Structures are given as structure tokens and as C-alpha cells.
């Protein structure tokens, strides 16, 4: 199946924000926006759902805390409760102050690393991944908005994008693999 996309390039982030808002108001579907740096409020303007990464991080943190508690309870209290320097190894809570640094660090460790890995997986990033830039200039100083042109009049859409201040507009037709 051939898909038709229109790439509109802007040279200014304010112009881009304005164009995104107008395009959304005109009921065109923006499939992607490429920018060289984070544009404040762009996700909101495009209408992206808020991220749930923080929630996953909280759950990972709880996991780390559980791992730390179970590990030290098993090692220090259950498996071989030795008297080390007179520390009370009779129950977990009696010796807890000594475990808290580890509990804290493991909580942070799990929360941070698993969240980062989740981020890589969700955004499909890994070493040797083929870069997806439609235009190299979008990593430097240009902003690119990609719009589905499938069911629209291309002439009309181009005119519309021209009016939003696009400096370059190109029609992209590519055969998809599947």
C-alpha cells in the first residue's frame, strides 16, 4: 500500500507551534513532528497523551524496595543470624536502621534503571538502530511537521500549509514493506 505524507518545514519554533495548532483546528492529522530540541508545550498542542513513565518508575521503586527487604531479611536474619559487632539480628525491624541505606539505594536503582530501559523500549531506541530522520536539517535548525495526506486534496492541503508559514512543502509517497 502506498502512503502519502506531506512534509512541511518551518524555521522557527513559534511558527511551528502556531502551525500545529492551526493544522489541528483544521482537522488534519499530524502523524509526526521532528524538532532539533524540545519545544515547550508541543506535546500538548499536538494532543499527545501524558506519559505514564513516572507511574512505571514508582512501581519499579516498590519492586526494588521489596527486593532489598527480602534479600537482607533472608541473609542477615533468617539464613545465618550472626552476632556482628553486637548488632541485634533477632528480627528484621530491630536491625533495620543498618539496612535502610541499602533499601534506599536499591529503590532508587530499580526505579531509575528500569524506567530508563522502559523508555528505550517504548521509544524503540537501541544501539545500531537505523536513524529515522526524514530530513537531516531537523537535527540542527529546522522543524518538520508530517501530515497524512491520504484522504485529502493535496492541492488544498499544500495551500493551507503554505498559509501557516511553511518554508518548504514536499509530498512523500513511499511503498510500505508489509
Amino acid at each position: 500500500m502506498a502512503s502519502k505524507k506531506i512534509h512541511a518545514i518551518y524555521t522557527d519554533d513559534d511558527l511551528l507551534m502556531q502551525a500545529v495548532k492551526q493544522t489541528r483546528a483544521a482537522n488534519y492529522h499530524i502523524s509526526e513532528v521532528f524538532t532539533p530540541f524540545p519545544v515547550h508545550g508541543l506535546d500538548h498542542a499536538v494532543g499527545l497523551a501524558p506519559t505514564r513513565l513516572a507511574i512505571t518508575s514508582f512501581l519499579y521503586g516498590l519492586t526494588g524496595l521489596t527486593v532489598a527487604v527480602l534479600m537482607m531479611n533472608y541473609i542477615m536474619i533468617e539464613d545465618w543470624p550472626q552476632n556482628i559487632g553486637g548488632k541485634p539480628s533477632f528480627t528484621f525491624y530491630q536491625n533495620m536502621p543498618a539496612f535502610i541505606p541499602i533499601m534506599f539505594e536499591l529503590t532508587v536503582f530499580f526505579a531509575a534503571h528500569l524506567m530508563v530501559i522502559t523508555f528505550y523500549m517504548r521509544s524503540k531506541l537501541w544501539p545500531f538502530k537505523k536513524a529515522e530522520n526524514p530530513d537531516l536539517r531537523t537535527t540542527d535548525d529546522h522543524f518538520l511537521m508530517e501530515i497524512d495526506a491520504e484522504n485529502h486534496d493535496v492541492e488544498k492541503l499544500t495551500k493551507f500549509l503554505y498559509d501557516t508559514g511553511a518554508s518548504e512543502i514536499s509530498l512523500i509517497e513511499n511503498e510500505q514493506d508489509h
Partner: protein
Amino acid sequence: MYTLPSKLKLFSIIIMVLGLVGIAYGFLTAPKTVEDVKEIMAKQDAHHGEGHAAEEHTANFVDVARGEEGYSEAAMEHATDLKPEGHGVASHEEHVLHQLQTRPWSATFVAAFFFMMIALGVLVFYAIQYASQAGWSPVLYRIMEGITSYLLPGSVIVFLIVVFAGSHFFPWQNEELVASDKILQGKSGYLNFPFFVIRGVIYLLGWNLYRHFSRKYSLAQAEANNYDPYRKNFKIAVFFLIFFIVTEATMSWDWFMSMTPHWYSTLFPWYVFSSIFVSAITVIALVTIYLKSLGLIPFVSDKHLHDLAKYMFAFSIFWTYLWFSQFMLIWYANIPEEVTYFIIRIQEYKLLFFGMLILNFVFPILVLMNSDYKRIPWFVVIAAVFILIGHYIDIFLLVMPSTVGHNWYFGIPEIAALLFFLGLFIFVVGTGLGKVSLRPKNDPFIKESENYHF
């Protein structure tokens, strides 16, 4: 423009009167002689019967693991920290008498300091906003200034209490005791009464002068057509912060740590500071929510509330960090001269000691972690109530175990003092808020602050 509603005014006056009556009752009913104490103890014994006899032990140790009681009695025999009046005690009754006489003093001091530290902490927060040229907070300047108007009456009362409490609070002021105690003699270069009073006067002057001038320049800025008053405020804020960090440390040594003059801890001043700071920010948030609900500050948005709630969250964790650092280092090393401080707190105040951790750490962290909840006023209010109760207990635990030991009780003197200073706080802060418009004008960052969002 805010005016203290007449109902709130009446309410504050009523609880002030009730509080005063209760405080007076506390002082008048304190036992006067050893005979009174014997009578009280006899009554208690009659009430509790035989099963209670174990608690009459002066030793504060129970070795759970070995099932023995008071095994460190010998080690504790010479520790004056658990009995503020120290070696000079003739009998157990005299010891109890002293603690019971101290109780109304301690009860008043805890509440007085709790409300004074809120005003002081707000002043520090205010100075930090100036010194860091914060862009989000100028809309809150008038609110902070309103709260710090309590500093003058509050700090004077606290000063009077610590000066007149004498050896009720500070065993090193008991000359007989110092004469027989080498450790106290060694510390008398710092812990002596004239120097103690001079230091107190310096703190009071420094803090109140900064409050006076910052308020003056802040109001002058509203009328000015240049930024000179703002520049002056910036400059004095920087110097105040330097002054404060030194005096806060010595203040907490003077007024809290010297209640147990054999004990010392290096990060104690920071720990007291974190308690001051988090309660202060919490009160700013509460007053902001209150004024916002009256529709008086339309220029303050939920984004400002979000920031305040973030501060409450972060400094609750900061407090816990310092609390734990102090506790864990002492618990771990377990040096007898240091660990007495926590032994009495854990054995005699167990519920408060660990309950305050839940109030000050677990609840704020769970309630305020979600960023959406930080913008919902009633969520912030719930967290604020937990934090304020928690830090009242914190101050209670700084003072009570060191002064009244195991003869503590949360009764009329404590509640009355809390009511009196709460009334005074509402009255003074309400009046202070009402003096000028709540909208700061001409501040260089006010525009940014009013349009603040993220």
C-alpha cells in the same frame, strides 16, 4: 485587601483566653514540695495497683533479647541527661518533683517555639526568594510578610521563656550541679548565663531587624519608580541568610541541645532547621489556600500551589533524611554518652517517636507524590495537617524527654499552650495580612510571577 473576619477574630481571642487560663492552671497545680509528689505517687500506685510497680524503676533499660530489666543501670547511674538536675538529687521524689514543676514550662515553650519557628522559617523562605531572584514567588510576598508579622511577639515570648526557665530547662544553670560536674565546668565558657542572654538578644535583634527592613523596602518598592528598594532588599536578604545560618545553629544549641548538656550531636542544628523550614512552607501553602478560597488573590494560580506543595514534599524528605542520619549514626555506634538521647525517647515516647515518622515522612510522600494532587487544594491541606501535627510532635520530642523525662503527659497545660499560641498566631497574622493590598506592585519579577506556569 484582607480584613480578619470578626468571627475568626473572636475565635482567636476566645482560644487565647482559654489557653491563658489553662497555662495558669498548669503552673498553679504543679506540686510545690516533696510531700505533694509523695501524695501523687501514692495515688498513682493506688490506681495502677501492683502490676505497675516495674515502672517505678529509675533505670530506663529493658533488654528485650535477654528478658532482663535495667541491665545497664550501672552505666546510667551517672548520666545526668535522664535527670536534668543531675547529681544533687537527694531522692527519687525530689527528682520527680523537679520534672513535674518543669512540665508547665515545657508545655508553654513547645507551643511558643512551634509557632515562632513558623514565622521564622517563612522569613528565611522569603529571604531565599529575594536572594535567588525567584521568578515564581513574588505574588506570595505579601502573604509571607503577613505570616512573619508573628515573629516579633512570638520571638519575644520564646526569649522570655528560655531566660526565665532557668534550671527547669537548663541544668547547666544550676551552680551546685556545675560545681560537681567536670563536663559542665568544661563547657561553662559557652554555657554561662550572661553569654546565653547576650546570644539570645543578638538572635532576636538580627531576625526582627531583617523582618522590619525587608517589609519596609518591600512596601517602598510598591511606591517607587525605580528598583532601589528591591536592590536593598536583595542585599539585606543575602546578609540575613548568612546571619541566620549561624544563629540558627547556636540557637538550637542554646535552647534545645543544652537541655541535655552532656549530649551533643553535630547535625542537630540542621535537623532543627529542617523542621522549621518544612512547617513554615506548609503554613504558607495553607494561608495561600485560605486566601485563595476567599477570592482575594486571583493572581495566584494552582501552579504556585504546585510549587509550594513540591517544597513541602521535598523538605519532608529532607527532614527525614536528617532525622535518620542523626538517629542511625548514634544507633549504629551506640556510644553510651550519645545514645542516652534516643533511649529515653524510644522507651518513654515510643508511639510519638515513631508515629511522627509516619506523619512527617510516609503520609506526605504518599499524598504529595502525584503531580496532579499537588494542584488540588484539599489534598495539600490534608498533607499540611499531617506535616504540622508531625512537626509539633517533633518539637515536643526535642523538649519533653530532656526536661520532664518519663513524667510527661499530653494534658491541660500542653493543650492550653497550643490553644493560646494558635489564637495569638491567627490574630497577629490575620492583622498583619490585613494592613496592605495582597498584590505586590512594581517588583521586577512580579509580571513573570503572575504569568507563571509550567
